[in-house]
């Protein structure tokens, strides 16, 4: 079976700075891969490369069989990225946001309620503007948007940040559920204790290079 992510000597420039300086990385289906490494190492850029959001300068990058060097937009429909930002409109409620994104994705709009139920976003805040929600509630709404997307590849950038213990457990449970139904998860995290328990493999990213692969 082809790998879900296959990067060979991948270089990404942010301006003139090589945020990724020749990364080799292979991620197989069903893995939960933890990208460890210090701030500025290139973890977020690696995730954004896999999402097709930054252009590949040189090397090769295949995600879900799509050649990102030829068309970086090709894999986007099958990939979900949850970064530091929520991707939600502040003036709309979580429900309205999810209905919009479901329609945009041609996904089932009736799945919105079950997605909000799954992330345990309490009923009374579902009809408040996102701007009035707490950080944790926003993250839950973002996770619900991810569920509606039903991606084959989950890309999570600091998924536990700003969450209480219950929500952190929820993130881990959702990752495991996604893998159980055939998805693959790649996440970057500084929370090594929790990340080590969740991941099936760890890759250290440092200075724009990925290396030191080890079983978790």
């Amino acid at each position: 079976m082809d790998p879900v992510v296959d990067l060979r000597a991948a270089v990404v420039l942010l301006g003139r700075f090589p945020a990724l300086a020749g990364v080799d990385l292979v991620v197989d289906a069903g893995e939960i891969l933890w990208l460890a490494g210090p701030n500025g190492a290139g973890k977020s850029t690696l995730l954004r490369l896999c999402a097709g959001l930054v252009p590949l300068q040189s090397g090769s990058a295949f995600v879900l069989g799509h050649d990102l060097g030829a068309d970086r937009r090709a894999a986007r429909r099958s990939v979900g990225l949850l970064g530091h930002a929520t991707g939600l409109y502040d003036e709309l409620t979580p429900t309205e946001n999810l209905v919009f994104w479901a329609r945009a994705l041609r996904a089932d709009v009736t799945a919105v309620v079950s997605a909000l139920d799954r992330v345990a976003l309490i009923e009374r805040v579902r009809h408040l503007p996102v701007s009035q929600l707490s950080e944790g509630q926003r993250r839950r709404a973002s996770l619900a948007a991810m569920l509606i997307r039903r991606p084959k590849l989950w890309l999570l950038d600091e998924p536990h940040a700003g969450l209480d213990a219950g929500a952190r457990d929820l993130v881990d449970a959702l990752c495991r559920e996604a893998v159980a139904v055939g998805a693959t998860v790649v996440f970057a995290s500084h929370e090594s204790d929790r990340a080590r328990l969740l991941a099936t493999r760890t890759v250290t990213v440092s200075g724009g290079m990925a290396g030191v692969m080890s079983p978790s």
Partner: protein
Amino acid sequence: MIRDAITVSAKDLRLETRARVVLTQVMPFVLAIVLLFGFALDADTALLRRATSGLFWTTVLFAAVVIVQRSSAVEQQDGVLDALRMSGLSPGGIYLGKVTALFVQLLAVELFLGLAVVVLYDVTPTGIALLTVVALLAGLGIAAAGALYGPLAAGTRTRDTLLPLLMLPVMAPVLLGGARAFEVALGRGVGGGWAWAGMLGIFAVVYLALGTAVWGPLLEDT
């Protein structure tokens, strides 16, 4: 693409009903301009009536800058632009959706402004058919060009000042065509009102085609 346009325009109009920028900021701004022109011209209604066409479209353009700025700013919120890029919505559909929402908001402003000049400048609207067609075509042209220049400016640090600099010069044909056609419709110009309307239609079609074609690269690079 049409389905995407409907999805995006419905979302933009819902955002507007929540924020009420047109109602609480743009319309008072428009009213203030109309009143200030009245004071500046010493409430000389004969002079105000003569100047109505030009004042009307100048005011619409100023209002359009505010509405376009807002329309672009909502897509810069908290990772929304990345989410849009990854949504699978066709770039042309997003563009047409934003044009539609802008068009609806501009029509509301034009209607409000029209009522204001009728009441305050003592203008008697005649040539209703030409006035209506010109208002629709000019509104569409402004929306089509605004939805194109808004994201261009929004991606820069100087967006607040850059947008009017980018947008207002290219709107000169709308100002010219709208003002001349309104003069004819209000009985103060000489012939050719429908020719100006035709020019406004061409302006709108050119910008709609251009925006639909280039919004993809624009979405990727802003």
